[in-house]
């Protein structure tokens, strides 16, 4: 399992490296918004913590992570749609 995790992580890092290297002028905001949305995977971690935690404090922290992750995901999604409506900001 840990080996699969490490291989998946390193493969993702390799793809991210290529994507970051190939960003063209004018694509910066698009990439950063998607990177921000990917960072919202903390919501999934929050689900695991809230599901498995034995203490109320840890469960509360997991629930806070879910709120933060879901807010980031939906906010980023709306931001991506609005960025597409016109020229990128500045």
């Amino acid at each position, binding site marked *: 399992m840990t080996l699969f995790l490490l291989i998946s992580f390193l493969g993702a890092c390799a793809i*991210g490296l290529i994507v970051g*290297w190939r960003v063209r002028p004018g*694509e910066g905001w698009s990439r950063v918004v998607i990177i921000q*949305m990917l960072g919202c995977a903390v919501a999934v971690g929050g689900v695991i913590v809230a599901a498995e935690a034995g203490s109320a404090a840890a469960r509360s*922290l997991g629930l806070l992570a879910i709120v933060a992750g879901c807010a980031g995901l939906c906010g980023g999604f709306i931001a991506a749609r609005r960025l597409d*409506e016109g020229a990128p900001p500045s």
Partner: protein
Amino acid sequence: MMENLTLTIAIGWSLAAALFAVALWSARGDDLPRAAWAALAGMAVLGAVTVYGHDVMALPKICVAVLLGSGMGLALGRSVPRSALPALVAGLIGQAGLGAAFLGIAGLRNPHAFGLLDAAGDHILPEAAVEIALCVIFGALAAVGAVVLLWRGASRQGGIGPAMALIAALAGWAVAASAFLLDNIGMAVAGGLAGSAGTTFALRLCVGAGRKGLADAGARP
């Protein structure tokens, strides 16, 4: 703590990872909404697989947290003026970093539940301690960086600044550290993609573009 790797979970993780990669790869001006849909779909698949793979006891509370967070995000995304979208994105990145720091602290508060203790059950395993530390440090740095960026006025910056790409990368690395803490492959892929792409992008802006932003940097380095 670790999910039993069944065929359904493996397929779900693979699908989520593929959707994340497609989202990041295809995020360009015209394709941005499609990329955002792919990222959202990947996150939905990952969330569904996670709920399927765990014995979720606090499902009502989790549903309330999901609805609350989604509502907040939708309200924020719709209400801010378009010129403030960069500041909004910076704030959301900081929020994600803070969430990752919460996950690390939760692991520290309740290590037994996440299988982070040694055989005797007295001490946290060294590798788990490193993962918790990375989770909290990267997450806190992303949150503090976002606050500093907002303080300085993210919306007044011309184009994408290296600082914005860097805090996005820090949030990604924090997610990757929490993925190793919680043994979740989908999170590891999302964190690895975000961290690696954000770091490379920030370095290109700092070094390759001479701190001027890609718009002034010509084509690829």
